[in-house]
């Protein structure tokens, strides 16, 4: 709650950081009806790091991502990705939606879903060549799903569906990966596999931002955190930002004692 008035130099430094940032959100307000889900939020993601967006249920975590990507229309605010408007750098962004947001009864196979990630390369009528299939197959291998290429997507478990979505994102070969609750309702093996892939991406210089709800795994999985509860609460490295005080700010009294203990233990 320190309210320092920004100096001119400070402002210039902020602008420079935003221009370099893989994802910079400014003054974002999104409202469903008359109640804002996200209010006047700023966010500046650090490059080549894994950032968790955390906050209580209904705090606007997913909404923030969707508004940044233009999937929902914000009331106010703007987003830049690598210093440019989102529409101009779509090929550098890969987005993994919530698993439950699509109809898994859709008549298609695992490999076809992964190939959707290559659409920007293929265009309307480009032929799917062997090189494309190999690339898609390789992405499936990276998430440990190589044996499922011709499986109907409706026959997959929740964890397998999530891995297919991740494979599609890998096929996009982006620089910024945005994931909406990638660990929601998946088995332990999948969670391990996904985090391994994400860390690999980060080590290769990519930026990963994930909406996350399991506080106990934050320090183990992520470099940075962004705490939100309709407003931005705090953002920065896990070591200095993922603190009792900020969690208290974000979750108010809604964090159970046991959960807090678990976090302190880590």
């Amino acid at each position, binding site marked *: *709650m*320190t*309210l320092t*008035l*920004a100096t001119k130099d400070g*402002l210039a430094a902020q602008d420079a950081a935003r221009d370099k940032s893989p994802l910079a959100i*400014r*003054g974002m*307000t999104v*409202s469903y009806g*008359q*109640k*804002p889900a996200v*209010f*006047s939020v700023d966010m500046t993601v650090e490059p080549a790091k894994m950032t968790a967006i955390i906050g209580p249920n209904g705090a606007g975590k997913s909404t923030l991502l969707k508004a940044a990507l233009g999937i929902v229309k914000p*009331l*106010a*605010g*703007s987003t830049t990705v690598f210093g440019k408007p989102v529409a101009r750098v779509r090929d550098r962004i890969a987005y993994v939606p919530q698993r439950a947001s699509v109809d898994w*009864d859709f008549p298609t196979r695992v490999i076809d879903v992964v190939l959707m990630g290559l659409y920007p390369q293929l265009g309307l009528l480009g032929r799917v060549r062997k090189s494309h299939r190999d690339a898609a197959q390789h992405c499936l291998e990276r998430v440990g799903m190589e044996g499922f290429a011709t499986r109907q997507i409706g026959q997959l478990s929740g964890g397998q569906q999530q891995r297919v979505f991740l494979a599609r994102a890998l096929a996009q070969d982006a620089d910024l990966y945005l994931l909406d609750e990638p660990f929601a309702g998946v088995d332990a093996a999948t969670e391990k596999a996904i985090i391994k892939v994400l860390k690999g991406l980060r080590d290769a210089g990519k930026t990963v931002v994930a909406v996350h709800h399991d506080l106990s795994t934050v320090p183990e999985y992520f470099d940075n955190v962004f705490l939100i*509860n*309709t*407003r931005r609460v705090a953002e920065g490295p896990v070591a200095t930002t993922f603190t009792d005080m900020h969690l*208290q*700010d974000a979750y*108010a*009294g*809604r964090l159970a004692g046991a959960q807090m203990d678990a976090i302190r233990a880590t």
Partner: protein
Amino acid sequence: MIRDALLLQLGYNATLVTLGAALLGMAAGVGGTFLFLRKRALVSDAISHATLPGVALAFIVMVALGGDGRNLVGLLTGAAVSAALGLLIVTWLSSKTRLAEDAAIGAVLSVFFGFGIVLLTVIQTMTAGRQAGLEGFLLGSTAGMLRSDALVIAVSAALTLALVLLMRRPLTLASFDPEFARSTGQNVTRTDLIMMALVLAVTVVGLKIVGLILIVALLIIPPVTARFWTERTDHVVLIAGLLGGVSAYVGAAISAAMPNVPTGPIIVLVGFALFACSLLLSPARGVVSAYLRHRAYQRQVHLRQGLLALAHGQPIYERLTLRLLRRQGWALPDGVATPEGQGRAARAMRDETRWQVIRRDPAYEAAAARYDGLTPIESVLTADQIAEVDSRIEVAT
């Protein structure tokens, strides 16, 4: 002429039909509400189209048995049987196969109707040019109706309405909150079945008045219209019944006064006119008020964000924000705060800081839940509470 009709001065038959239509409209409005609340409005479209082969088959059977085939009770019985079969198939397709309900509805309505058309052409051959009069079931026709038919319609409409009113309570409960209804020991599956039976009854009784293509309008438009005027389920039921009754009464009266105006379409258009007015003008959910509210809200959000930016000494990036601030006299064209703007900004900042304090304190959870970025904290906390909050801010800084 229309005045006479509205005052029921056009003879016994017309009066019976008009009253019957009004009763039917009420029953449809109330029954349709439950369908609408269960988000299954278009199931009624499948039911109504599925009556056609039943009507045609009933006609063929009655002729084959030596009758003249135009007995209304017989025709309506046939309609009810085939509509029930259609409903059964919709349920079966959407529960036992992977098809969604909308596909099942579309399939049943088009196939049953197509088959009905086939049967109608068979009847044309049978009657060899003599009008079977079944075309009246497509669009409804009340002109030149037999007295016995008018009686049948009036009585069955009254019965349907009585049934709807009788079942009002369990249906309201089941359509408002099926889970809760189940927990109170209500058999929701059975209630659903009753709801469908009611819809079926409305459809069949309405065939002769409104016709099978447009009867769905009587089930759908009144509840949708009513929804604009209230948030309470029991009130929706009441208003929908009223609207349905009024549309059907006025429509049937107009049609009685002007014989070349078919009954069904005019009833539907009266109902639609009521709907259009509600859509535009309802104070709570109407388009006009919603638009005005949205604009006002967007303005407030931008102003607040602008003030907070001024308080932080940040530049104003969005043009709309700056324009609004300038119009209020709170900022100059280059984005610098005016003296009044500085005062406002400081106040907004203080408000925001107070909110931050109470949002992190479980003791204030109820008040904090009202945070929406705009509500001044004075409206949720007492002066004493604010003083207490302020004392904490001083300690922190």
